């Protein structure tokens, strides 16, 4: 039964070097503050899992936190590329990033299987695409009743899931609403789960479409108002679209990115190679 702990304690206790870590939040409720704390604590060799890497993983990848990435759509929504992600894949800066990629349907179902502790999930999808060449994560199964061949994805079971939510109650139960993405599944698929919340309340309000996670499936809850900035928390903040647009220029340039990191107290794994890039 987690009582709120400082974010630094939550990350120190539950995120270790080499872990597979899923920070989820589909455009909405992206746990940026927790991601920065992971970077600040100098974690290395993580396998990062996330449907939409978004700026949060562009930053972590640029800082050199990740060795591998599991994802399904790696763009800056409505703006363009994630240049740190591209630089890592195309030019191996700050180091080579191994990529495992799904479609949204595939990765969502990999979490679903993980949450159910099943080794795989079945879906209609992938047939005829080159994504099927990743046979360690995408395969086929035959329906035992109809003989139809369908896609199968390997379950994702992160060591740690990290999400941001609007509310915790005094018992440490957590509530989120609005676009809730795949957060329920990510938390239930993980061995450990950390949640940052906007605030703690005595009683949860009624919200159609809300997801409630009981305290006994959570490892730590931290109160971090604004912890989703520059993404947003419905009812608390709006998306900082300007930051998303301005990020393009920061991310494009290794030197500009390293300046941003330094200004934000985020240690970078590699600072050379700055002149050599795209």
């Amino acid at each position, binding site marked *: 039964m987690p009582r709120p702990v400082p974010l630094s304690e939550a990350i120190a206790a539950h995120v270790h070097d080499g872990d597979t870590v899923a920070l989820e939040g589909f455009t909405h409720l992206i746990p940026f503050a927790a991601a920065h704390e992971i970077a600040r604590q100098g974690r290395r060799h993580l396998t990062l899992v996330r449907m939409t890497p978004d700026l949060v993983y562009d930053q972590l990848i640029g800082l050199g936190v990740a060795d591998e990435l599991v994802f399904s759509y790696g763009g800056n929504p409505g703006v363009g590329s994630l240049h740190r992600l591209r630089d890592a894949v195309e030019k191996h800066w700050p180091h080579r990033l191994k990529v495992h990629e799904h*479609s*949204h*349907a595939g990765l969502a179902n990999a979490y679903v299987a993980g949450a159910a502790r099943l080794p795989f999930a079945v879906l209609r999808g992938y047939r005829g695409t080159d994504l099927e060449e990743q046979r360690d994560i995408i395969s086929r199964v035959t329906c035992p009743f109809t003989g139809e061949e369908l896609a199968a994805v390997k379950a994702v079971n992160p060591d740690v899931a990290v999400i941001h939510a609007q509310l915790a109650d005094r018992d440490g139960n957590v509530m989120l609403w609005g676009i809730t*993405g795949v957060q329920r599944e990510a938390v239930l698929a993980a061995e450990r789960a950390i949640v940052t919340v906007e605030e703690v309340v005595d009683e949860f309000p009624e919200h159609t479409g809300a997801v409630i996670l009981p305290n006994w499936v959570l490892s730590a809850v931290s109160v971090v108002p604004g912890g989703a900035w520059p993404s947003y928390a419905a009812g608390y903040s709006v998306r900082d679209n300007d930051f998303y647009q301005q990020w393009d220029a920061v991310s494009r340039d290794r030197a500009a990115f390293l300046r941003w990191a330094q200004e934000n107290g985020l240690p970078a794994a590699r600072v050379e190679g700055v002149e050599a890039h795209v």
Partner: protein
Amino acid sequence: MSEWSSADMMNVAAARELRDGDVCLVGVGPPNLAANLARRTHAPNCRLVYESGAIDAKPRRLPLSIGDDDLAATATAVVSVPEMFNYWVGAGRIDVGFLGAAQIDRFGNINTTVIGEHSDPKTRLPGAGGAPEIAAAAGRVIVIVKQSPRTFVEQVDFVTSVGYGPTGRERQAPGAGPTLVITDHGVLEPDPDTNELALTRLHPGVTVEQAREATGWPLKVADSIQKVEPPSEVELTALRRLRDREAVDA
């Protein structure tokens, strides 16, 4: 008449393809513009579904991402992302899926993953997102993409989403596949026999020769080419208001 660009023409032409009442899965970029334009002009009852989970979203202004709060706040229902893909997209409840492309071949196969080798790409593109399953399961797929030899290629570097397969005969998915490819030059449609994309309509001011030059394979041209109507004042006004993100009453 107001001024308009070839990109405006492309978006307007795409919007016109939505029928009132269609259930339309909307992605970022031109599809978002086209679908919201349709809803503000001839198809007020088309149903916008966003892969973030918003069903029947009625955005008051153009959403900047597929996860804008306005989508959730105005939707009839918001579901989880797994439910969206399993119960709605995969189950075939989408009438029209709009897709973009970094590369597309003559059989409508689409690449949004990499230029070069997947293991060591020259250019890393965003990846699949919802596209492979939308391409497979939507009743009809409308591709919106600017035409150039770099994009309209003999062979895509990576098949992210299947159109009609490598030789046009391999499609096995439940939906009809890419029934229209709408570009800044005109419209391509699959040949009923071979599924090879052929130019069937030209936007105003564009020639067949220009469309051929913008295509990386010997482009087939339909026997009778339709002329696309230029954007109307109504369409252009709605388009401008969407671009300026002016709010409308829902």
